[in-house]
């Protein structure tokens, strides 16, 4: 097992990249601890699979280096790096039994048969596939096939890191959460460094201690699920995480106050740096409430999603959603909106520009 360091990493699929657009992956610097659970989250085509393949050694980066515990592995093959990877579609050796499938990575490394047997049974036990060990793997259902693929990844005791590339894509929804919790449990049992790639926020947020959000080949934020929810560093993170995503409302700046239309909208704290460019207010629907006097809006749509009610409002031509518990307004009704000041952020050119009041206060005091 190993910690992972990515230093000045960049990658292009072109032989001779010139401009920034030629790179599938912009410069990345990262430090991951040994034994952690990490997720790479982002929409399709954002470069997360490229990054994963660079870490596993299937792709050699154009620039920069990959280090496992200070050992440079950039030019090593996946086999030399001693990693395991689970792919989007279950990879199964059709001709073998489940047992032989699980034993395959160990037998290829000439491990003694008694050790192979012990390890295979241990993993089968963990994955709850012991009763299938004698079956031909080709006849299994997709979720069991994916379990076997995972098992092959976990069966070696000395792997540096186990990687999952959207492993639940082909699994039925009702089995997804089962496998997801199984994975979490496995991580706690084997304590290997695990990296999980997905475009599904629920999968990323439930699995990982730390989530890396990517967009257009660039890391936009690294943080715990709570940080990503509470303080998205970029409006993209706000949109992408949360259901529904964060509201982003264009605003104008007068002095150090933000105005939407003519109305002042207070936000959390002081602004860091100069405000040059497009400014926006960001607030999650959870912190928008319907009040007597506030920002005027028209209700466009009301959806009861069981746990709470999502109210979609129009402020001018900007959509602002609010989450309410009861007494939803009628569609077409004129309402007034208010934002929780401490949870309202200011964004400049899509990047977070406001600071929390308390840390700013502390800074001013010191």
């Amino acid at each position, binding site marked *: 097992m190993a910690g992972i360091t990515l230093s000045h990493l960049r990658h292009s699929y072109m032989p001779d990249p010139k401009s920034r657009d030629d790179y599938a992956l912009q410069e990345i610097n990262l430090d991951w601890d040994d034994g952690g659970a990490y997720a790479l989250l982002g929409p399709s085509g954002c470069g997360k699979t490229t990054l994963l393949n660079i870490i596993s050694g299937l792709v050699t980066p154009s620039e920069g280096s990959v280090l496992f515990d200070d050992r440079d592995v950039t030019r090593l093959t*996946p086999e030399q790096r001693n990693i395991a990877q689970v792919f989007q*579609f279950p*990879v199964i050796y059709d*001709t073998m039994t489940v047992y032989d499938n699980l034993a395959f*990575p160990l037998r290829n*490394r000439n491990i003694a048969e008694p050790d192979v047997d012990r390890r295979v049974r241990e993993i089968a036990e963990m994955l709850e596939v012991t009763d299938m060990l004698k079956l031909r793997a080709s006849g299994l259902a997709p979720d069991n096939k994916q379990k076997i*693929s995972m098992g*092959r990844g976990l069966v070696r005791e000395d792997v540096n890191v186990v990687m999952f590339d959207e492993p639940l894509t082909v699994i039925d929804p009702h089995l997804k959460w089962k496998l997801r919790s199984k994975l979490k449990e496995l991580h706690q049992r084997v304590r290997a460094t695990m990296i999980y790639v997905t475009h599904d926020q629920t999968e990323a947020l439930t699995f990982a201690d730390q989530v890396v959000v990517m967009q257009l080949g660039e890391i936009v934020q690294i943080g715990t699920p709570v940080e990503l929810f509470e303080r998205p560093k970029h409006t993209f993170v706000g949109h992408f995480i949360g259901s529904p995503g964060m509201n982003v409302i264009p605003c104008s700046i007068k002095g150090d106050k933000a105005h939407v239309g003519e109305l002042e909208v207070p936000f959390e704290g002081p602004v860091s740096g100069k405000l040059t460019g497009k400014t926006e207010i960001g607030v999650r629907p959870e912190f928008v409430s319907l009040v007597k006097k506030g920002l005027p809006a028209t209700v466009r749509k009301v959806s009861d999603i069981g746990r709470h009610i999502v109210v979609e409002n129009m402020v001018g031509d900007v959509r602002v959603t609010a989450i309410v518990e009861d007494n939803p307004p009628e569609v077409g009704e004129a309402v007034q909106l208010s934002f929780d000041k401490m949870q309202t952020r200011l964004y400049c050119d899509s990047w977070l520009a406001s600071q929390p009041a308390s840390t700013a206060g502390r800074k001013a005091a010191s």
Partner: protein
Amino acid sequence: MKTENQKAWFFVLPVLLLVAFNALIPMMTVVNYSVQETFGDNVFFWQGLDWFQQLMRSDRFHAALGRQFMFTGIILAIEIPLGVIIALSMPKRGFWVPVCLVTMALPMLIPWNVVGAMWNIFTLPDIGLLGYFMNKVLHINYNMTQDPFAAWVTIITMDVWHWTSLVVLLSYAGLVSIPEAYYQAAKIDGASAWSVFRHIQLPKMKQVLTIAVLLRFMDSFNIYTEPFVLTGGGPGNSTTLLSIDLVKIALGQFDLGPAAAMSLIYFAITLLVSWLFYTLMTRNDAN
């Protein structure tokens, strides 16, 4: 409510008619000939199963059948592994893929009697490129019109040249359908090249290979034109395969009865072997 009527028969009727006229009726004519004797003028004498019994005891038939199995066996043993090896060594993508595919498909586009004629000229000892090279440059005595061994080598080489590309194309289609993830997973699992072939490529090629073996078996078992044009069944009877012998009996000697009986047995053998092979391959799948 489910209504029941006989309308569906009308939809099947065209197919039934087509099959009747192109297969069943000609086939029944052959059955008709196989149990009678005729000297022309549309006069027939009932023979019962005489022709079949005669054929079963005929050394000539046994020899032709033996040659036929030997020919098919040898070309399968060469073409299938060779086709797989070529498919494995072909590039997976890029400029050279269409070049390889088209070049390889060329022999299959040549009419069969032209193939025979080409090889005939190619192997002539005085003027043929191969014949001249073997005799005059390498000083190996090579004359397929006199030496049965040389004749066999030539018809087998010709068939390999003509049809290996079919196996290559089918195997290649099977190979490119394997997702990249399988190779990546195998790399990570530390699999050797042999393991990758044995556990990933071969199982994924199994279905197309079954088709390839079936097609090559049927085609080579029924082969007529190319060896007929090339060797005419000689020297002596050494390359007289079943179909060549059949034509000799039917058109050369005008023994329509025995030829019909031979046709039926010939057909039965082709059908039986194909069925056996296909059943064995697919039964393996079900387990």
